């Protein structure tokens, strides 16, 4: 029997009780269609949403199509070498004007009546144009641009609210971690190997939490750590002692920590042999020359999982993954994930990076499928929300100092979610 009878809204979805050290979230937030509609209106239609990386449209004429926040967009580099984002909708009767996932072209032609647009979105041709009255507004027959498109260090975001603050202000403390990532290269970073897309039956916020949930690591991913050990790693051997969650403002948060796995930049593991150790040492030296020892080691050894509110993840771990995810419905989401790498890394290191990536991440990895399964089971469990109504996110509350296995980073997410959903601006 499906969850037919959704209970009334609680007085508050998020209840934080500092005194008793409890933080609870009402499970109706994960199942109710009315909540989803409000999220669309108050969160996805107002926040900066990740669109893509500059390297995905490297030269003029490169384009890709992507659904972002419920819209179908074209991300294209114009003749003038400027990246632009358009709604993929013909101004005539509305057909998608571009069907390819990505490509390189000089124009977009609608199949229905052959209206044709240049890379800057301008209508450049339509059959029997003489049968039209002169346009009353300039551009009324051009492709519509997204209200706002901005980038920080090659990461392009869109915002459907023309009045939203600028991107860098929005990113707030997240800028520091984007820098830590982009600084891996002396030349540029690039998306390698295209995109991983998959979907599963769980509310999108479950993946937001999971993306930087330190607590689940050992129990959920036992088989991955078995594998790391089988590959010659040791659970102790972290090269860094840090374990810390941080509130980055505007609902963004991060956990920074040490881990036993190898990092292409620049922490070698046994499996990579002397050759790998040498290469890592060299990379670290270069980093030291560029940034000094402390920052160099932070870049080289420290892992971090960061969520940029509401749904953009940068996990800088055994590889670097960018990830975003959107709801299809309250109980289903689709995920897009990418691997980011320095354009100037060696072929062997690139190989190690992708090998690392696949062993943990993605639909065939040793970890991600277990995450998705856990989240699916949560969604199932919420069928009981009339009687078992509250999630507990209290771990670490009232502790002198917080560690990355506590749940503070999720609390940061939920406080912002609650603020935006309550309509506080």
């Amino acid at each position, binding site marked *: 029997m499906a969850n037919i009878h959704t209970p009334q809204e609680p007085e508050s979805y998020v209840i934080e009780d500092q005194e008793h050290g409890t933080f609870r979230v009402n499970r109706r937030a994960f199942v109710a269609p009315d909540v989803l509609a409000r999220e669309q209106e108050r969160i996805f239609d107002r926040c900066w949403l990740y669109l893509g990386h500059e390297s995905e449209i490297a030269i003029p004429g490169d384009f890709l199509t992507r659904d972002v926040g419920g819209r179908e967009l074209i991300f294209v580099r114009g003749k003038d070498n400027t990246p632009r984002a358009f709604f993929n909708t013909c101004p005539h009767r509305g057909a998608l004007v571009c069907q390819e996932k990505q490509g390189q072209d000089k124009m977009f032609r609608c199949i229905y009546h052959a209206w044709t647009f240049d890379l800057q979105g301008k209508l450049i041709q339509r059959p029997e144009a003489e049968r039209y009255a002169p346009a009353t507004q300039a551009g009324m027959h051009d492709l519509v641009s997204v209200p706002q498109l901005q980038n920080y260090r090659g990461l392009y975001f869109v915002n459907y609210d023309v009045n939203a603050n600028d991107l860098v202000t929005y990113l707030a403390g997240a800028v520091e971690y984007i820098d830590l990532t982009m600084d891996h290269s002396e030349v540029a970073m690039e998306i390698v190997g295209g995109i991983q897309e998959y979907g*599963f039956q769980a509310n999108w916020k479950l993946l937001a939490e999971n993306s930087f949930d330190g607590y689940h690591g050992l129990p959920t991913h036992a088989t991955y750590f078995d594998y790391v050990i089988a590959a010659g790693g040791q659970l102790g051997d972290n090269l860094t002692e840090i374990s810390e969650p941080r509130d980055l403002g505007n609902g963004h948060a991060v956990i920074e920590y040490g881990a036993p796995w190898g990092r292409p930049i620049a922490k070698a593991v046994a499996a990579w042999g002397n050759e790998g150790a040498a290469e890592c040492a060299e990379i670290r030296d270069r980093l030291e020359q560029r940034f000094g020892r402390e920052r160099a080691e932070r870049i080289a050894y420290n892992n971090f999982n960061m969520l940029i509110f509401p749904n953009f993840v940068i996990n800088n771990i055994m590889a670097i993954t960018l990830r975003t995810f959107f709801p299809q419905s309250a109980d289903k989401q689709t995920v897009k994930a990418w691997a980011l790498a320095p354009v100037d890394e060696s072929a062997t290191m690139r190989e190690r990076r992708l090998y690392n990536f696949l062993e943990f991440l993605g*639909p065939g990895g040793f970890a991600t499928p277990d995450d998705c399964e856990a989240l699916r089971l949560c969604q199932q469990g919420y069928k009981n929300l009339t009687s078992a109504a509250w999630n507990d996110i209290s771990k670490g509350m009232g502790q002198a100092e917080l560690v990355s296995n506590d749940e503070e980073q999720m609390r940061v997410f939920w406080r912002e979610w609650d603020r935006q959903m309550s309509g506080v601006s």
Partner: protein
Amino acid sequence: MALSVQRSEIEDFLYGEAALLDEWRLEEWLELFVEGASYWVPPAGSDDSVEPSTTLFYVADDWFRLQQRVKRLGKKTAHVEHPKSRCRHMVSNVRVLGGSDANFKVTSNFVTYRSKGGTTETYLGHHLYDMCVEDGVVRIKHKRSFLDTEDINEQGKVSIII
């Protein structure tokens, strides 16, 4: 050197492989491969020419990781497959594309059904095998499984051997 096996023997081999997978006898399944064999699953909709060095695959196992994958799937802590899903591997359109006993190519079409948690997921596509025959025994050197759909938004994962 010529090729000493017929399609019919390869079908016996592939139907046997499918049965081992349906019955979750993965250790025995692994014995169908030569040492150093590899197993790849590229992203849905890929062409046969795609390479894991330039594309982000779902699975790109060398011999070490393939053995580890089998080990993992045998554990209770491989949560997505514990309790085990119920699978059925349908194999058809088997074609021997030629080569020699030392190395020959085989392709087949597949539909693999996976049932768990109240839903049945359908994986469909084709396999490309590099195989060899040594003293009459057929073995797999390299297996690639291509999903002939646009994406895996419905399936969400490649947690089984498809």
